[in-house]
């Protein structure tokens, strides 16, 4: 193939685009590091895990900087949401793909897409005015880890359902035909052929859902109660790392601000680990 001038130009433009996108990530990580350096230097890494609590506004000397309760809260809220949303999402994708009549499948797909498109603050507002009062009547104060898990579940459910559906779409059709030729029932086909064969796709779906749950901010901020503590019950209020940043960033100065960038760095680290894991899984190693 001869390389015309426009081809060369296109290649360079595309290289430029690639470089730019990659550079943005590097710049963001660099910026986070740069902004959090003062806090890491003045407070020291150890105090972020050993201080009594989180009262950063008094500065490095007088403040307290324990991030552990917020890491625990983020992990618990995310894990709870994923445990609920993964079976629900994958189940709904299985239903839509293998059981629902054609028309229902179409409508169902559109509904899920719509659910994925609702802005998170809308979920948060709904959680604050409907869900939280409901839970408060049953188990005060209502704003709690439990509410956060429910709202997060609803939010990551469509992500998991859509990606699981995409994984089923990618399944080689021979598998299904072979299964039919063997005379397997629909339920048996789903359990023994479809789910194992699309395992890596499903894992990726769940991991991306997890990523969304970790990063979700506004909705959690509105329903979780935002008290910095290690919860001893699911009905206690907690503060996630993202909510912490959103709650305090606008009002934070100097050392406090820098400490919030440490939170951002931590969050970035969590997401990098997660994406790395998703990458590892989607390369098909999970089949091994």
């Amino acid at each position, binding site marked *: *193939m001869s390389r*015309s001038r*426009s*081809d060369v*130009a*296109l290649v360079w*433009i595309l290289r*430029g*685009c690639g470089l*730019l996108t990659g550079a943005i990530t590097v710049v963001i990580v660099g910026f986070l590091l740069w902004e959090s350096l003062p806090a890491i230097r003045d407070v020291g890494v150890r105090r972020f895990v050993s201080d009594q*609590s989180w*009262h*950063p*506004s008094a500065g490095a000397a007088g403040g*307290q900087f324990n991030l552990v309760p917020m890491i625990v809260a983020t992990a618990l809220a995310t894990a709870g949401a994923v445990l609920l949303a993964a079976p629900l999402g994958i189940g709904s994708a299985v239903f839509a793909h293998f059981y629902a009549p054609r028309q229902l499948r179409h409508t169902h797909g559109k509904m899920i897409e719509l659910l994925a498109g609702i802005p998170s603050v809308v979920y948060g507002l709904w959680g*604050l*005015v409907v869900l*939280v*009062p409901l839970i*408060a*009547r049953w188990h*005060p*104060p*209502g*704003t709690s880890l439990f509410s956060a898990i429910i709202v997060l579940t609803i939010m990551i459910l469509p992500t998991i359902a859509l990606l699981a559906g995409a994984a089923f779409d990618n399944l080689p059709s021979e598998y299904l035909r072979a299964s039919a030729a063997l005379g397997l029932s629909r339920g048996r086909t789903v359990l023994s052929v479809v789910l194992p064969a699309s395992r890596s796709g499903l894992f990726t779906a769940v991991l991306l859902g997890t990523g969304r749950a970790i990063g979700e901010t506004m909705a959690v*901020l*509105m329903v979780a*109660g*935002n*008290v*910095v503590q290690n919860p001893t019950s699911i009905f206690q*209020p907690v*503060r996630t790392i993202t909510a912490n940043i*959103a*709650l*305090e960033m*606008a*009002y*934070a*100065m100097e050392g*406090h601000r820098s400490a919030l960038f440490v939170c951002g760095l931590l969050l970035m680290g969590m997401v990098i680990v997660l994406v790395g894991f998703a990458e590892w899984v989607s390369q098909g190693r999970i089949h091994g």
Partner: protein
Amino acid sequence: MIPRPHLVRAIALLVLGLLFCVFPGCSSNDADKNENQIVLTGSSTVAPLMSEIAKQFESLHPGVRVDVQSGGSSRGVADARRGLADIGMVSRDLKAEEQDLTAFPIARDGVCVIIHRDNPVASLTDDQVVAIYTDRINNWKDVGGADAPITVVNKAEGRSTLELFVGHFQLDNKQIKADAVIGDNEQGIKTVAGNRHAIGYVSIGTAEYDATHDVEIKLLPLAGIAASIENVRAGDFPLSRPLNLVVKGTPTGIVAEFIKFARSRDVNQIILEQYFVPLSQ
């Protein structure tokens, strides 16, 4: 498939266009130091009021643009100091270390304790409020209410409403045992309105507006004085604060004109509509 040259050219133009939009954008910050723009940043209590006043000011001065951004009193102080904003909005008195700035009070606001409308408790003493916020009292029956645990709603660190509250009750924020921590006033009111056993504190302006507009909250009196705009105006209500515009140095030009307008009698109606207390009579 080999792309057609004009398609390639279109993509190239698009990408180059994007790049040019991004990079010169870095230098455009110098441009907004023009004569016809006023930037206000600071207190989220003052920001909605200033937005309304700004609208009025803009309609009187065609070509002038007033940019109001909230972010808390501390941000107002810092931005006015660093010159990031022409005017800072601060919903408290200036502290001793902030005397390098000049404050122009425009109105007063009070902070009041709110509970759910269905809560039978009619008043709390200062000691009871302190006891509730430090978790020494954790049941409404101990203060004359129903037998139910108290949900304590506190504000997030750095907010001036919190500073005013802990200052008045001589609390340290580290002593407060909250069941919910909220950001802005509206979130606090929604939280209390949604929970029969909650107690919180918010700006009187917002609380009185919502209480008279069918939101299920009740404003508690403080030291026997009813929490109302009237009592704040009279200077009787113990938990009140000035709303200030702060500037570094002496304001000149359009900024001075704006401050003069914001303190004039012309904006009293706007201040009243926002349930704050005007100072100029």
